[in-house]
């Protein structure tokens, strides 16, 4: 297993009083070429889980448990090694393409920057690599676009640039935190297709965090359902969505619009039934 999280708990220190635990013992594992979907409503601990995985939790947070990445425990790793690992082995795609890019920097430089930081290559080589990456995420007219500033691009294009940045160093693990939430439906489908292709072609492991079951159904091999920091259920996406084993999953599914639900062959519980 490439990523193995065992009994991860995260608690936040309060100004006074006892710490508040927001993630209560999550375990999961993921191998190359696999996609794990994490679903849950706002505040269910999805984002805290992903931040813990890359070691970027705020200072007030205290994680316990084990996060084994290629056999090394990330929680015990010194900051210096961790920052070498982040970016080069683990990439992250953010929710808001508007705030994920530096508005004062050309997109080409933003992609090239990570490359130059982790590998000793020349400026020209980094730019050439940036161009290749922009082509890979299907930015039309990449040669001209590489000189653009983020505000000159559409939301979908910006998100593709975000993916290009995350992929620049050929990471083993890619964490996408709601990568399509801020995009409209057609662009959403394109971005998901790009991600799906990358997972199978480059053999990276993908953790996709979303509150949208449609997105999860489309791309994830396995799904983890979270609620208030607890695991509700985990398993093959197909199984979780068609024969949910937990009442909360059923409740999530019944929250889908009827038409989307029809595609999943799922009958909602009768009204009044306990979730």
């Amino acid at each position, binding site marked *: 297993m490439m990523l193995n999280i065992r009994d991860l708990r995260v608690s936040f220190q309060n100004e006074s009083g006892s710490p508040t635990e927001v993630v209560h013992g999550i375990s999961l594992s993921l191998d190359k070429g696999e996609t794990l979907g994490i679903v849950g409503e706002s505040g269910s601990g999805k984002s805290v889980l992903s931040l813990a995985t890359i070691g970027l939790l705020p200072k007030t947070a205290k994680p316990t448990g084990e996060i084994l990445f290629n056999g090394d425990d990330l929680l015990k790793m010194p900051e210096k090694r961790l920052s070498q690992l982040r970016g*080069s082995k683990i990439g*992250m795609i953010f929710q808001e393409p508007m705030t994920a890019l530096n508005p004062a920097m050309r997109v080409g430089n933003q992609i090239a920057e990570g490359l130059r930081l*982790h590998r000793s290559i020349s400026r020209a080589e980094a730019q050439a690599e940036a161009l290749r990456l922009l082509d890979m995420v299907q930015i039309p007219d990449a040669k001209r676009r590489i000189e653009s500033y983020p505000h000159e691009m559409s939301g979908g294009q910006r998100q593709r640039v975000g993916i290009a940045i995350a992929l620049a160093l050929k990471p083993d693990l890619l964490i996408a935190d709601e990568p399509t939430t801020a995009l409209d439906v057609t662009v959403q489908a394109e971005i998901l297709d790009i991600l799906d292709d990358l997972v199978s072609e480059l053999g990276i492991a993908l953790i996709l965090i979303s509150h949208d079951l449609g997105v999860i159904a489309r791309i994830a091999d396995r799904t983890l359902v979270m609620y208030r920091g607890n695991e509700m259920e985990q398993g093959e996406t197909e199984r979780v969505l068609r024969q949910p084993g937990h009442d909360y999953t059923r409740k999530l599914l019944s929250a889908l619009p009827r038409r989307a639900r029809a595609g999943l062959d799922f009958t909602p519980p009768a009204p009044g039934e306990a979730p």
Partner: protein
Amino acid sequence: MKKIPLALIIGGSITAVLVTAAILSRFWTPVDPTAINIPNRLKGPGVGGILGADHFGRDELSMIMAGAWTSLGIAFSAIAIGGTAGTVLGVAAAARRGRFEALVMRFNDVLFAFPPVLSAILLAAILGGGPLTTIVAIALFMIPVFARVTRSAALQIWARDYILAARMAGKGGTRITVEHVIPNIAAQIIVQIAIQTGLGILTEAGLSFLGLGVAPPTPSWGRMLADAQTYLSTAPHMVLAPGLAICIAVLGLNLLGDGLRDLTDPRRRQAT
């Protein structure tokens, strides 16, 4: 194409005239601004030169031009020192947070509590009078202004995802500040520079009015005003010339600052 705000055009023109006059005065003024010409004593505009003459018969226009150099020179030097120190403190506070931030900001509160005139008198007692004292006094009161503005602007930038991405890539706080934070708060800093230069001119005039500025005979707007007090009823033009010069300079720099802010902050433009 963005519409250029009217304030920016007016403020920019006034500032340009001011700076040109100040630079020009180093090479040429209608009359030597320090030349005493007793027959012209207290003569009004027209008779004793374009803007008249003062109680020593010195040409007011030449003194205003030379005074612009003094005022702008001191204001800009103060901005360069105070603005840099304040910005460094502000972005460092935003980058480090925690106890360091609290310490820096409380230190700024203390600085801010001193009226600039008071700290100038204090400094004059320690360092002796003169332009250096004035510059340091004005710079001291600029520090907290810049520190506060840059800290709050930088905090907003630190909350963005691209900062998280930069941290993920393994960059340290200093590097993130230089490469990502400062370019994104540059607009706010430039606006502050324009507005604070206006305030700096006003403070410089106030200090030299009290006799804490540059030593005579170097012309200074504030001292021209102080000299003019005595002759207020007999030669009112002596008050008008430096008074208007200060008003117009401060107005021009404030308009420039407002205009720059409107140009760089579209939200505010919609609100007004």
